[in-house]
C-alpha cells in the first residue's frame, strides 16, 4: 500500500481549500486550518490498478503575516503551487514559495495550478505569463474549484509524477 503526502501551497484566497474540497469530502472543520495553519484531508485514488492514499496538507496561505512552517512541507512527495488567475501578484508569491519548498525538501514533483478558470474574463494573468512559466520548465494547469474543471486531472497527474 502506497501513501503520499501532498501539499497545497499558494497565496491566501487563491482557492487551495476549495480545490481540496472539490476533490474530497472533508472531515476536519475549518477550525484547525486557522488554528494551526494546516488542514488535512485524505483521498484514495486508483492509478493503473494501484490504490494510492493521498494525504492532502492544505497549508494556510502565505502572506506577510503568516509564514509557511517548514515542518508542514517536510516529507511531501509532491505539491501544488496554486495561483489565482484574477490576481497577478499570486504568481510572484507562488514562485517564491516554490523556491522555498525546493530549498527545504529538495526536488520533488509539483504542478502550478492557475485557479479560478471560470473567471477567465477578468483574469490578470495573461497567456504570455503562462507561456513564460511553461518555458521555465514548469508544469502548469488551469483549474476551477468552482466548476471542478481539471481538478481531478491535476491530482491524478501529480500522483503519476510522484510515482515515477
Amino acid at each position: 500500500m502506497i501513501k503520499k503526502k501532498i501539499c497545497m501551497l499558494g497565496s491566501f484566497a487563491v482557492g487551495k481549500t476549495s480545490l481540496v474540497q472539490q476533490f474530497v469530502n472533508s472531515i476536519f472543520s475549518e477550525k484547525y486550518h486557522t488554528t494551526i495553519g494546516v488542514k488535512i484531508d485524505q483521498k484514495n485514488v486508483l492509478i493503473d490498478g494501484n490504490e494510492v492514499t493521498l494525504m492532502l496538507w492544505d497549508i494556510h496561505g502565505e502572506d506577510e503575516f503568516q509564514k509557511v512552517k517548514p515542518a508542514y512541507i517536510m516529507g511531501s512527495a509532491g505539491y501544488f503551487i496554486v495561483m489565482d488567475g484574477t490576481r497577478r501578484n499570486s504568481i510572484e508569491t507562488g514562485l517564491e514559495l516554490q523556491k522555498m519548498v525546493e530549498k527545504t525538501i529538495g526536488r520533488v514533483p509539483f504542478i502550478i495550478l492557475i485557479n479560478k478558470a471560470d473567471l477567465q474574463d477578468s483574469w490578470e494573468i495573461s497567456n504570455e505569463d503562462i507561456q513564460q512559466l511553461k518555458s521555465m520548465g514548469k508544469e502548469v494547469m488551469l483549474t476551477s474549484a468552482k466548476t471542478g474543471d481539471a481538478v481531478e486531472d491535476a491530482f491524478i497527474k501529480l500522483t503519476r509524477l510522484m510515482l515515477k
Partner: protein
Amino acid sequence: MLKNNAKEQLLKTIQANRLHELRTLLTGLDKTELQQLNTLIKDPEAFSEEIRKLLPLSIRKMVDAGDITMENLLPLIEEAMRESIQRNPETLADILFPVMMPAIRKAVATDIKQMLDSLNNTLERSFSFKRIGWRAQALLSSRKYSEIVLSHAYIYQVKQVFLIHKSTGLLLAQVADEQQGNVANADMVSSMLSAIKDFVQDSFVNKKGNVLEEINVGRMRIMLEQGPYAILASVVEGNIPKVYHDLLKETIENIHVEFFQELENFSGDVSPFDKSIPLLKQCLQKEHKREKKRKPVFAMFLLFVLAAFLAYGIYLGINKHVRYRNLLNDLQNSPGIVITHSDNALFGKMAFYGIRDPMAQKPDYYLEQNNLKVKNVRFYFKPFLSLDPPIVLKRARRILKPPQTIKLNYNKGVLFVSGKADTTWLKSLYKRYHRIFGVEKLNVSTLLEKKNKKVVRNILAIEKHVFHFKYNVFALDSAQVKEFKALIKEVKNVLDFSFKQDSVPVIIVNSFTSYSGNLKGNKYVAQHRAEQFINLMIRYGIPQEVLVPKVRFIENYNSKFKNRSVSFQVKYIKPKNL
C-alpha cells in the same frame, strides 16, 4: 697538506652546514629559534609560564584524541569539586542554581501532575453515583453508554497505538483495542497528530531536545514517543502508570532497529510495517479496575446488631448477678440482719427474705453502693432482737446515752464500760443496763468507778431504802432498826468520799405524804417525821449539815412511793450553793 687541510676545512664546514641542515630538517627550526628554545628551557620561570599556556589546550587535544578519557579525569575533577564545596559551598550553589532550577521545576511539576491525577482517580472511583453521571455523559455526547461504562471499568486503557512516519506524518501501522476497533480516519488522525506535534513543537517548545510528549484531548491522552524516523502515538484513557512511558520508549527503539532501512528509505510504501504490529500490540495495555465483591453489608449489620444485643444482654445479666451477689454479701455481713433466702430472677426484681433487728442498718443503705435502685429490689424482713455485738452495742448506746468519754464493748453477754463519766451517768448505768437485751453482766472499768465502785453501790443502796410508818408512829420496829443501821453505815461510806473536789454529797430525806385530807396537817406531820428521822441519824453520828428534810406529796396512786414513808436521795452540790 694544505690541500688536505683545506679539504678537511671544507669537510668540516660542510659537516657543520650539514649538521645545521640536518638540525633544521629534523626540528624545523633555525638556529636563532633553537637558541630561543634553549634559553626558554633553561629558564624554569619562563618555561613554566609557557607550559601553563599550553596545558589546557593539550589536555583538550588529548581528550579529543582519546589519549586520556573523561573517566581518567573525572575522579580528579570530582576531587577538586569536593574540595571546592568544602571550602566555599555558596559559590558552587550559585553556579549550579541555574542548571538545577529547571530540572527541579520539571520534577515538581511532574509530581504535582501525578498527584492530581491520582487524586482525581481516587475521587472518581469512590464516587458512588458515577454511573448516573455516565448516563448523562452518554446522553450529552455521541458515545454509547456501554462504551462509557467500558471505559470506566478500567483504571487505564490504551485505545489506539499509531506508528507514524516522522517527516511525512503518514501512518505506517496501527493497532487498536478489540472492543474499540480501528479508527476510521486513522491516516488523517496520524497526519493531524503530526501537524499538531509540529505546530506545538514549533510554537512553544523551542529549546533543543525538548519534544512534545503528550496531547490531551478531553478525557483522552495522546502520548508521543519520538524516534529519529518514526513516532509512536498512544491514545490512552485513564491514569497511566509511569512504566508505560518506558514501554513506549523501548518499542520505538526496537522499531527503529528492526525497520531502520525501511524507515530511512521510506517513500510511501507502508506494507513492510505490517510486521511492526506485534510490537505495537504490546503497547495496548490496560488495567482492569478491581471490582470489589459486594459484601452482604445488610446481613452483616443485622448480625452485628444481634451480637451486640446478645453481648449487652449477657453483660447486663452478669452485671445484675454481680450486683445481686454483692448486695447479698453486704446484707449477710450486716450485723442484725439475717438473710434466710433470696432470689434473683433473670427478668424482674431481686428479693431478699429474712429477719432484721430494728437497730440494724437499713437495707436500703446497701443499694446505692451496689448501683441498685429501690424499685429493682424487694426486702421482706421480720423484726427480731439480735445478739450481734454491734447491734447490742447500738442498743446499749440507745438506752445508756453514754458521754463521748465512755467506750462500750460487748462480748458474750458482758458489756464492758471504760472511760470517764460522772456519777450521775454511772448511777443510770447501773439502773439501766439490765434493760439492754443481750447484756447479762456489766464490766465497768471507768477511771472513776475503779476507786468509787463501792461509793456508787452505797449511794444506790441508800436510795433503795424505804421506811414505812404507821399512822402517828415515828419509832422504828426491829426490822427497821436493822435497815436503819445499814443505812447509817452506807451514808458514812458515802460521806467519807467526795467524788469531785468542788462538790459535796447531800442526803435528802424525803418524807412522803398524800393530798388526801388536811393538806396543812399532812405537811406538818410529814415535816415532823422527816425531822425525827434526821435527829435519829444525827444521833448515830451523821453531820447535820448534809441532811436535808423534804416533804413530798404523792402525785398519784401509781407512784412507787407510799404514804407515810421516808426514802433518800444522794445529791452532790457545790459548797457555795449550800
